[in-house]
């Protein structure tokens, strides 16, 4: 443990060096304020706060309530610590590697290391760049946190801290650059309005790979300790997702409105669709089913929110309630991998679904940047498949390497006894409830 702590401090101190090197020049530039729009700015501050809320406490509650009682806090800690670590690293170097000047389509340049040159008056289109930076930060944070759902109830907390640093750096940053930072997938014309590929496929595939490397838990069953937390988490995720999707318009305009209505529709339809699928399949409509369906719908609409029309969002919602259901209820048990909370089964599957359907349903009447198969552009579907495929392959490979490195360095799995008595006690020395 000590070895780990010291190493981490060294890394952090090292990184902080940049901060203070750059300190004098920070915010010295960009004194003019050409076109700030207070309405867009107002919306984007709020959208940022909303996406922050998705990770903390949104995802922490959603995942924590699904965990066993004895692992609840550890599960929450994974989201909590990740949000904090990514917050720092994103400013330190994440932002520049994604949104800095494009280097051969692969990564952003180092120009804005520690936000060098970004000042209080810098703008990103019509809003202060500081706000854009934090908005994007919240996406990076939740992407990493999502993957934790597949690893809980057996992963060392120190290993998770390392995973956060390495995976955010070597997987999230390049992929986000490719799609959103002007990288090669962007140039190819891949559509990803709010992160189907960058966030959900990415996190979902990492989840699957990690689950395979970690192996099965001793008690590999989903037996939620507190479903009231799950409902609360689902509600906060839905609420926050308005910021995620409608915020991805980066303005308070009609496109944000379209993303808003599509997001709500797909989530609602997917929840109903999952509920009825389950009702017919196992004879009971569960509350966990409603929550899972809603999340699957939100995931699937994410890449499409600012491209499709309402009919598109309905179809996406219906499918998002069915495919992920069977992927977790039928396929997972058959294949036998232990994706504890279905991070792959829901985010990976629904994310891929959404990315593909965006290539089909993108309606130029909503957003002329996107024209799908149904509107006469079959090439878009191919592009979507390429973007998803590239991401899946890259993420799978690098995630595997990262896990191997961490395994060698600190180990990835807690001792059997600690797994049985629960990670809350062994990793944190706490217990969730003393009721």
């Amino acid at each position, binding site marked *: 443990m000590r070895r780990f702590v010291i190493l981490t401090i060294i890394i952090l101190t090292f990184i902080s060096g940049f901060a203070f090197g750059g300190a004098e020049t920070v915010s010295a530039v960009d004194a003019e304020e050409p076109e700030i729009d207070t309405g867009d700015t107002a919306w984007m501050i709020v959208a940022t706060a909303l996406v922050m809320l998705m990770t903390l406490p949104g995802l922490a509650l959603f995942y924590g309530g699904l965990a066993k009682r004895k692992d609840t806090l550890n599960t929450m800690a994974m989201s909590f610590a990740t949000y904090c670590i990514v917050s720092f690293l994103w400013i330190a170097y994440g932002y520049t590697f994604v949104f800095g000047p494009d280097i051969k389509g692969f990564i952003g340049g180092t120009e804005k290391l520690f936000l060098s040159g970004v000042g209080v008056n810098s703008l990103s289109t019509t809003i202060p760049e500081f706000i854009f930076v934090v908005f994007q930060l919240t996406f990076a944070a939740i992407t990493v946190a999502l993957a934790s759902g597949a690893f809980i109830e057996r992963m060392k907390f120190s290993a998770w801290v390392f995973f956060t640093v390495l995976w955010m750096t070597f997987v999230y940053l390049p992929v986000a650059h490719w799609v959103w930072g002007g990288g090669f997938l962007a140039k190819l014309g891949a559509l990803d309005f709010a992160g189907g590929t960058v966030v959900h496929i990415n996190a979902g595939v990492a989840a699957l790979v990690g689950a395979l490397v970690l192996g099965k838990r001793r008690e590999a069953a*989903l037996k939620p300790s507190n479903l009231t937390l799950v409902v609360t988490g689902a509600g906060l995720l839905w609420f926050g997702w308005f910021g995620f999707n409608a915020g991805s318009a980066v303005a308070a305009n009609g496109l944000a409105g379209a993303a808003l209505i599509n997001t709500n529709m797909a989530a609602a339809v997917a929840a109903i669709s999952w509920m009825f699928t*389950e009702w017919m399949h*196992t004879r009971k409509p*569960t509350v966990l089913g409603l929550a*899972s369906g809603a999340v699957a719908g939100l995931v699937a609409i994410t890449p499409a929110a600012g491209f499709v029309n309402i009919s598109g969002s309905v179809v996406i919602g219906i499918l998002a309630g069915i495919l992920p*259901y069977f992927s*977790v209820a*039928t396929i997972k*048990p058959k294949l036998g991998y232990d994706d504890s909370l279905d991070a792959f089964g829901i985010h990976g599957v629904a994310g891929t679904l959404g990315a593909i359907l965006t290539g089909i349903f993108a309606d130029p009447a909503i957003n002329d940047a996107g024209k799908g198969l149904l509107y006469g552009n079959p090439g878009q579907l191919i592009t979507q498949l390429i973007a998803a495929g590239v991401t899946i392959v890259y993420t799978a490979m690098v995630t595997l390497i990262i896990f191997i490195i961490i395994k060698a360095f600190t180990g990835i799995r807690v001792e059997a006894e600690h797994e049985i008595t629960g990670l809350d006690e062994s990793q944190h020395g706490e217990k969730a409830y003393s009721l």
Partner: protein
Amino acid sequence: MKKVEAIIKPFKLDEVKDALNAIGINGMTVSEVKGFGRQKGHVEVYRGTEYEVNFLPKSKIEVVVPDSIIDKVISTIIEKAKTGNIGDGKIFIHSLEDVIRIRTGDKGEAAI
């Protein structure tokens, strides 16, 4: 003195308690237990996977009584806790060596 230990369905607890009260029993101790018996449990389904929950919630009533009224206590419990369905529960009778009231130090039947 005897200790009567009755495992009953939780929703019958209040009725049994009131009936025992009515026949002059003014002390008992109750705990929540999980029962396993002929009555089969129920199924919980999470994301399409079913789990059988074998253990059913039951209430355990412990009441210490003088030998003289033991039959009345038993018949009262049976009368109130019975639904006629599987899972109604069991009554166990133990003999007790002694009882002491902590507050006063009284021993034996006086302490009940």
